[in-house]
């Protein structure tokens, strides 16, 4: 973990007693954790509960987190363990295709085991996805390239700058403009 890493910065803050920083770890990872849980937990109401349990557990174990692996790998392991505990408590067997924590960063979520959701919430999340994807499609080519390289390929600004042959500051600005444009469409959808 390097010092630029947001997770690293956040964990340092929390370990120094700034509890509020934990909300950012939750906000950052809650959807990914919930997504992992859909492979184990069938009911959407339970997914929210188990996700919550995962983060409480993370919070409790955080003092012992050494940072010798990426935070996400650690989080992934806790998520899978919590899911297995949940299944045991539900006296159901975990799915046969167990995914190892090592595969955490590369695992491609399958659509086969999506959770049970209420019809209206399905409609809502589909609407959110549709709006995001459509806005990305309509972005100017250079903005689209920048955000895609960042979000899908996980490249750093430096790497993107080399590929796109432009200054790092430009990459930074393009990614922000892409996010800002999508956010303008997204924010009203999420307002209750």
């Amino acid at each position, binding site marked *: 973990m390097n010092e630029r890493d947001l997770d690293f910065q956040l964990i340092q803050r929390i370990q120094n007693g700034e509890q509020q920083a934990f909300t950012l770890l939750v906000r950052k990872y809650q959807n990914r954790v919930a997504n992992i849980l859909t492979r184990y937990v*069938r*009911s959407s109401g*339970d997914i929210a509960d188990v996700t919550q349990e995962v983060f409480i557990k993370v919070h409790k174990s955080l003092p012992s987190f050494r940072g010798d692996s990426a935070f996400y790998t650690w989080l992934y392991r806790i998520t899978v363990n919590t899911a297995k505990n949940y299944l045991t408590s539900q006296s159901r067997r975990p799915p046969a295709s167990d995914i190892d924590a090592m595969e955490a960063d590369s695992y491609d979520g399958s659509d086969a085991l*999506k*959770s*049970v959701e209420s019809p209206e919430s*399905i409609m809502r999340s589909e609407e959110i996805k549709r709006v995001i994807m459509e806005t990305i499609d309509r972005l100017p080519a250079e903005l689209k390239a920048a955000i895609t390289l960042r979000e899908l390929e996980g490249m750093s600004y430096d790497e993107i700058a080399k590929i796109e042959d432009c200054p790092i500051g430009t990459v930074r600005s393009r990614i922000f403009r892409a996010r800002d444009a999508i956010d303008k469409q997204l924010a009203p959808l999420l307002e209750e």
Partner: protein
Amino acid sequence: MNRHSLFSTIVASVLLLLTPLGNAIEVDGNSKELVVKEESTIPSAIEYLQLMQKSYQIENYEILYLSSLQKQLEPMQLIHGIVDGEEASYFRYLNGVIRESLQYAGKISYFEQGRPAYTIESGQNRSVFANIANFDYVKGKQSYDYVILGKGRIAGKQSIAIRMISKDDYRYSYVVWCDLQSALPLRLDTINKSNVVVEQIMVMSLNVSESSNPWLAKLTTNALPETVHIPESTTDNSSQWKTTWLPTGFSVIKDDQHRLVMHENEPVSYILLDDGIVNVSIYISEKKLTLEEPQKLIRRGATVLYTEHRGEVEINVVGDIPVATAQRLAESIKLVTDDH
């Protein structure tokens, strides 16, 4: 009842209903002839009702409707369609907390924001107009007269109003409005014996389509929430209490002892009555409520909850029936002495 007297009843009722509208109709042989003539050319009241009933089951439609009772309006939506040869219906409340249900292939799933969703096995269609859509109108002739009231416009559609007049005071009367084109129900008024509308369902928008809503088909393929099994009631242990009086058309369709799972697992003796349109539940239990008077009543729209105390025994009657019926049913409850 012979043909002639039934006929006179209908004519009399028509006149009764038309008179307030100011139509001067002479009571003589001519008006009888007029009605007879109409009966042979256009569908009769009962035929309209039967058409409505069929459409409600087989058509693909979406309705937005309001339920109104005691000055309170509740907007709701129903999407109905035939998916792979089976009825599917999706229902939701449009205001407030998200509450939805999906019924398909013998199962109904309930979803409510902030609570775990679940499924129960049920082939019972209990959607908005289901009670009038499932009614056996031929059999119902013993309890109701069916009369065409006239035509009107509901939800932008030409519709026909049919009144189901109760032959006694033990049940409510209804006015059913059906779309002339699709025959689907558009409005249902529940009326007490003083001709006051106690509850009303009013469709605001009706959309009938050739094929079912694709979204509905998609919903039926989604994984359902966990099925919850209802605890078996003790069937060998039927209620020790019996009704000694039933209004015409009602019969006992269930009689058991079970527990109120929503309330401390309290054991109750239970009798369920049915007349094809409404159901009435009678609960006999230990005295639990503290009442100042020997009886107590809660009424909301057409629904009544009537409580009576008899010593240490408490009788509760619940259903969409007039108060007098609930009262008489409660009074009729007797303990069956075990003599075998």
